[in-house]
C-alpha cells in the first residue's frame, strides 16, 4: 500500500499497516490496541450503539446500510441466542482492501468484532473468510489464539462476564457468498443461495436467530469510534458521508493499491494524485466504480465526489469502493463481456432473471459487438437489464446489468456505431 504524505489520505484504520507485525498481538497493543475494548466492556450496549449511531458509519461492504441502526436492531431484540458474522468474503472484482486489513492489522478488526459482540450480548461469532485468502485465514486464526490468551476474546473478556466464541470459517469459491444470506447458508453448511428478505438477518439470520453481519472494514472502524467518540468520526468526510473509505485502486494506473481517503475526495483525485495516473501517457477510456457490479463512467465524470448522496443523485453507487481504471487500448465490449462472464459464472442459479439473464445479455452483447445486431436487439437488451434489476432475487442479479446499463447511458455511441439500423430517433435511453 502506498502511504503518501498527501492531503488526500486520512489515516484512521490504516495507521498500523506496514508499521506493526500482524502476527504480534503485543505490537498491536503497544500501538494502542485493545484500549477501546477495555473501555467498551465498561459501557452499556446502548452507550456503545449510540456512539456508532453518532458516527453515521455506513456499512463498508457495499450496501452502505447505517451500522448503528443495524446494531440497534440486534440490541433491542429479546430473541436469543444472537450471532455475529464478519463478512470477509471479499469477492467483488477490483477489491482487495479487506485482504489488506486481514493480513496486516488483524487485531483491529477483531477488536471491533469483540466490541460489537459485547455491546449486543452476542456469544458466538463467525469470521467467514473466502477460501482463496489462505494467508488471511492463518493470520486470523493465530490472532484469535493470541487474543484468547490475553483474555480479549473467549470466556470472561477483560475479566468480565462477557464471553465470545469466535470461529473462522472458510469459503469455498463462490462470490455469491458475499451476500449476507448466502453467507449464512454457507456457514450452516449448505450451498450459498440467498433467502427471502424480509426477515432480515437482524431478525432471523444464523439458525434463524438475530444476527449482526458486517464487513471487515466496518468492524475495523469500531475501535476508533469507541476511543475517539462517534462524533469525531462523523466530522471526517462530508455531511452526507462520514468518515473514511478504503479505496482499492487498480487497472491501468502507475500506483495501484489501497488508499484510505476521507469522503468528498473525487475519483479523479484518487486516480491522478494517489494513483499517479495512467502509465505510458495513455488516456483513460473508462473507469468502473465499486467493482464488477458497479457503474462504468467516462473520463468526463471523474470529478465526481466519493459521497453516497452525490453519487446517488446521479443514479450511481460507489459500492465497496473499488476504482478500476481502463485505458484506451481496450475495447468496451471486451470489458463488458469479461464482466458478464463473471456474473454468469457466479450466479447461484436460483432465480430466473439472473440464471437465464446473464447469458442472454452475453449473447446480445456478442451480437452487437460483431455487428449483426439491430435496434430490436438493443431494445431487448435494455428490457432484459431492466427486468433483471427489478425482479432478481438478490443483489447479484440486480447489480449484474449495471455495467451494461451505465455504458448504454455514457457510451451510447459505442453501441450505436455497431447497430445496423440505429438512428437518433430510435435512441431509447
Amino acid at each position, binding site marked *: 500500500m502506498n502511504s503518501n504524505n498527501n492531503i488526500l489520505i486520512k489515516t484512521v484504520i490504516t495507521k498500523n499497516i506496514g508499521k506493526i507485525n500482524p502476527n504480534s498481538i503485543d505490537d498491536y497493543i503497544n500501538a494502542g490496541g485493545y484500549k477501546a475494548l477495555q473501555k467498551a466492556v465498561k459501557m452499556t450496549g446502548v452507550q456503545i450503539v449510540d456512539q456508532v449511531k453518532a458516527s453515521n458509519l455506513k456499512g463498508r461492504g457495499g450496501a452502505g446500510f447505517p451500522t448503528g441502526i443495524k446494531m440497534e436492531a440486534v440490541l433491542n431484540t429479546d430473541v436469543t441466542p444472537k450471532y455475529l458474522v464478519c463478512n470477509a468474503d471479499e469477492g467483488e472484482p477490483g477489491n482487495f482492501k479487506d485482504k489488506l486489513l486481514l493480513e496486516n492489522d488483524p487485531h483491529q478488526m477483531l477488536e471491533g468484532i469483540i466490541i460489537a459482540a459485547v455491546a449486543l450480548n452476542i456469544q458466538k461469532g463467525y469470521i467467514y473468510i473466502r477460501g482463496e485468502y489462505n494467508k488471511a485465514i492463518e493470520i486470523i486464526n493465530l490472532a484469535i489464539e493470541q487474543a484468547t490468551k490475553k483474555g480479549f476474546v473467549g470466556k470472561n473478556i477483560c475479566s468480565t462476564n462477557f464471553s465470545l466464541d469466535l470461529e473462522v470459517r472458510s469459503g469455498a469459491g463462490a462470490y455469491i457468498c458475499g451476500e449476507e444470506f448466502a453467507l449464512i447458508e454457507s456457514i450452516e453448511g449448505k450451498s450459498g443461495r440467498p433467502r427471502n428478505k424480509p426477515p432480515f438477518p437482524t431478525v432471523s439470520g444464523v439458525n434463524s436467530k438475530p444476527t449482526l453481519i458486517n464487513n471487515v472494514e466496518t468492524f475495523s472502524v469500531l475501535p476508533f469510534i469507541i476511543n475517539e467518540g462517534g462524533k469525531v468520526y462523523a466530522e471526517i468526510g462530508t455531511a452526507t458521508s462520514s468518515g473514511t473509505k478504503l479505496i482499492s485502486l487498480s487497472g491501468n494506473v502507475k500506483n495501484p493499491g489501497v488508499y484510505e481517503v476521507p469522503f468528498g475526495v473525487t475519483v479523479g483525485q484518487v486516480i491522478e494524485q494517489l494513483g499517479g495516473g495512467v502509465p505510458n501517457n495513455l488516456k483513460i477510456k473508462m473507469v468502473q466504480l465499486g467493482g464488477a457490479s458497479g457503474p462504468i463512467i467516462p473520463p468526463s465524470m471523474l470529478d465526481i465526489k466519493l459521497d453516497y448522496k452525490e453519487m446517488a443523485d446521479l443514479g450511481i453507487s460507489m459500492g465497496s469502493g473499488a476504482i478500476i481504471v481502463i485505458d484506451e487500448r481496450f475495447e468496451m465490449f471486451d470489458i463488458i463481456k469479461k464482466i458478464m462472464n463473471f456474473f454468469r459464472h457466479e450466479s*447461484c*442459479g436460483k432465480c430466473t432473471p439472473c*440464471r*437465464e439473464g446473464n447469458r442472454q445479455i452475453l449473447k446480445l452483447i456478442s451480437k452487437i459487438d460483431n455487428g449483426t445486431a439491430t435496434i430490436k436487439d438493443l431494445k431487448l437488451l435494455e*428490457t432484459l437489464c431492466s427486468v433483471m434489476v*427489478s*425482479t432478481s432475487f438478490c443483489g447479484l442479479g440486480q447489480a449484474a446489468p449495471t455495467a451494461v446499463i451505465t455504458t448504454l447511458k455514457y457510451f451510447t455511441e459505442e453501441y450505436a456505431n455497431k447497430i445496423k439500423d440505429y438512428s437518433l430517433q430510435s435512441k431509447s435511453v
Partner: protein
Amino acid sequence: MNMIELTINNNKISVPEGTTILNAAKTIGIEIPTLCYHEDQIIKANCRVCVVEVEGNKNLSTSCSTQVTQGMVVNTNSARALEARKVNIELILANHDADCLTCQRNLNCELQKNANQAGIRVNRFESVLEKKEIDNSSPSIVRNPNKCIKCGRCIEVCRDVQGLNIVDMIGRSDSMEVLPAFGKYLSDVNCISCGLCSLVCPVAAIYEKEDIQEVWDAINNPKKHVIVQTAPAVRVSIGEEFDMEPGTISTGKLVSALRQLGIDKVFDTDFTADLTIIEEGNELLQRLNNGGVLPMITSCSPGWINFIEQYYPELLPNVSSCKSPQQMFGAIAKTYYAEKIGVNPEDIYVISIMPCTAKKSEAKRPEMSIDGKNPDVDVVLTTRELGKMLKQAGVDFSSLKDDTYDNPFGITTGAAVIFGATGGVMEAALRTVYEVVTGKTLEQLDFKVVRGLQGIKEAEIDLNGTKVKVAVAHTIANARKILELIKTGKSDYLFIEVMCCPGGCIGGGGQPHSTTNAIRQKRIDATYEADRNMPIRKSHESPAIKSIYEEFLIKPLGEKSHKYLHTHYKNRKNK
C-alpha cells in the same frame, strides 16, 4: 389478529396481518399468475413470475413472498409488472424444450398456462437449450431435464416430506440442474418410486412412465381376456380429472367408464384388501401368540417397501409377509379366477388402476409372478393416466350413469375402502382382529397424535386383557422415525401401519395434479363416508371372502395362501 388495510388495483381491502399480496389479491378475485408457488410448500419466489408493482418500492415485488403492510398500494398489472412477467417466462422458455403439442403435460402444464396467460406471441430470446438425455431407467418415473424450470418443488417434497433428498440442485448458474447424486440414473440411486415429485412438478420434467398404449393393445387384442382392478383411493379422486368437486365419490361412474373402454370385467381391489385383512390379521395373531417378530408392520405400500429394503433391510423381518392387495389380486386372478372361468392364465390381462407410481415397479418385481414367466399384474395405470385414457376414448365421465363391479370379486366392505386413507388399514385390521379375539364389535379407533412426532398417531386397544399398542405413520420421513424407534428398542408398538404418501394412498404420487393437502383431506372425508355407506363394514363378514376360502384358499396362512398371497423381501442396501 391485526387487520391491515391496503389497496390492490384501486380496490381498498382489509386482510389479516401476515397475509401475502398473492393471497390478499385472491380475496377480491385477482389471481396473480404464479409458477414455482405451491400452497403446501415453502415459499420459494424463484420463478419471479408473480411480480407486482408496490408503490414506493424501486424494484418489483414477488406477491407470493411479500406480506402486506398498512397503506400498501399495489398494482398487479402495471406496465412494468406485465413486461417483467413476460420476460421471465420467455427466459424460462428459451431454456425449455417447448414441444407442447406432443408433450405429456399438454393442456395441463403450469408453464404453458403462464405463457398463454401472459400473452406471449413470440420469444424474443434465442433458445439456449442444450438437450440432455432423458432418464428412462426407472419402471415408474421418467426424468426429462430438458423441461425442468428449476422451481425446486420436487426437491422439497423428496427432501422434506420423504426425508430422502434423491434429487437436488446440482451445480450453479445456468448449468444448474435437478439431478440424483453423482448425476446417476434414478434406477442407480435409492429412489423409492413414490412419484410425489411427479405430483408436484408443474411441467413435464418428471412424470410417470406412461402405459396407456399397452392397455389399448390388450383391449384390442381378441385373444386377451382383459380385467381391471381399481384401488380404493381412485374412486374418491378420479372425478377431479374431469373437474368434479374434490371429495366426490364416483365409484359407479368409475366402473361405467372402465366398461366404456371395452374392458371385459371390472373388478375392485377392495376385494383383495379384504383378503389382505384376513391374512394379515391372522399373521399378527400368529406373531402375538407364537413369539414372532414384533412389531409387525404393514406391507401394502410399495414405496414404503422400497424404502425399507434399501435403507433398513435389517428390519425386514418386522414387515408383514402379505402381498399388497394389488398383487394378491393379480395372483388370484391368474389362479382361482382363471380356473373358475376356464381361461388360460396366459390369456388373462390384469390392469390395475392405482393412485400410485410405485405400483408400476411393484408389478414388475420378478417374485410377483405365479408361473414365473408372466407378471400377475400386467400393467398399472395411475389415476392421472386413466383420466387421460378416458379422454382419449371420448368418455364424458361426469355424465355417466352408475354401474356396479362384476362378480366374483364384486362384494367388498367398508374396511376395504378405507385402505386409501392413512390409518385405514390399521382400523380395518383391528375391526377384524378385535372381533375375532374378543367377540365384540370395535366401535371406533381412538387415535392420539404421538407427542413430538407429527404425522405419527398411536392408539391402544384391549384384546381380552392384552393391551395392544398400535401406531400409524404416513410419509417416509415419519416411517423412518418409527424404524429408528424400533432399532433403538424404544418402540412398544405391536402393530404399525406405514403409508408412503401424505394422507395415505389418496395423496399418492399418481393422483391428479390438482392435489393439495386441503384436497387430500376432502378425499379422506369421502373415503370414510364411503365406508359408512357400505352394507358390510368388516372384512371377515364379506361373503365373497368366505367363498374364496371355502373354494380355494381353505384357511388363512394355509398352503395356498402362502403360495399365492405372501411374499418375501430383498436386502437392497448399497446399490
